[in-house]
């Protein structure tokens, strides 16, 4: 994993991406107990994405940079060392905000950035799959979450309705 982070940091210092943060399952593992997750989700600013003539999104600048370093595209990501890395452009305002407010953490001797627990929970709530909702519940239960800050994010990003549905389903006080 450290080598993967070093590759992504290098990609940033080479100007391919101006910023990034780890989100998704691995970010949840940072705050919670480890569980199986297959890929590493790297959120990137939309500026790193190329747009085709028909307005189609392309990760070509990232893929070609990594390909030139021997990392091939596999499924919906790129295999870097032994991790399937998915680059996710932060099209959603909550994702973009999460990138801006990401926390700096270290892995071994390498620095990286990871979604804060509040933004991670908000993004998982927005995503809304059952497994995402289970992680939101786990983050709340873990005590790692600043609830006031989390509710502020929910309000600012129009997630109040999703929160109400979640709170009813998981019997969480609003």
């Amino acid at each position, binding site marked *: *994993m450290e080598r993967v982070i070093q590759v992504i940091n290098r990609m940033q210092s080479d100007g391919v991406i101006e910023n990034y943060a780890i989100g998704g399952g*691995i970010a949840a*593992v*940072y*705050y*919670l*107990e*480890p*569980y*199986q*997750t*297959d890929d590493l989700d790297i959120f990137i600013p939309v500026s790193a994405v190329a747009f085709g003539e028909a307005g189609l999104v392309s990760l070509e600048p990232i893929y070609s940079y990594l390909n030139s370093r021997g990392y091939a595209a596999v499924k919906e990501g790129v295999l870097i060392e*032994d991790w399937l890395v998915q680059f996710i452009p932060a099209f959603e305002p909550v994702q973009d905000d999460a990138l801006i407010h990401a926390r700096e*953490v270290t*892995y*071994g001797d390498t620095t990286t950035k990871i979604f804060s627990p509040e933004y991670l929970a908000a993004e998982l709530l927005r995503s809304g799959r059952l497994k995402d909702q289970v992680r939101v519940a*786990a983050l709340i239960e*873990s005590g790692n979450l600043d609830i006031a800050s989390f509710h502020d994010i929910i309000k600012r990003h129009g997630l109040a309705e999703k929160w109400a549905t979640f709170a009813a389903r998981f019997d969480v006080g609003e």
Partner: protein
Amino acid sequence: MESNNFDLSKMTVEDLFRAKAERRKRLAKLPFEEKILIVKKLQAVSRALAPVRAANKAKRAAGKVEIRFKTK
């Protein structure tokens, strides 16, 4: 739940959930690097089981799964 007073016959469902919650909390406190090592091990187990799961899924889809009950 202390391991030295572990008694399966006296264990309740509440004990089980409490033990699981304690285990989750203990694992959550591990350093990130150790957690990632566990994730990698879980991925390896999942990869090893994938062909078996696929075969079972194919059997279920073809209706070839028999559930046998053993009576005396």
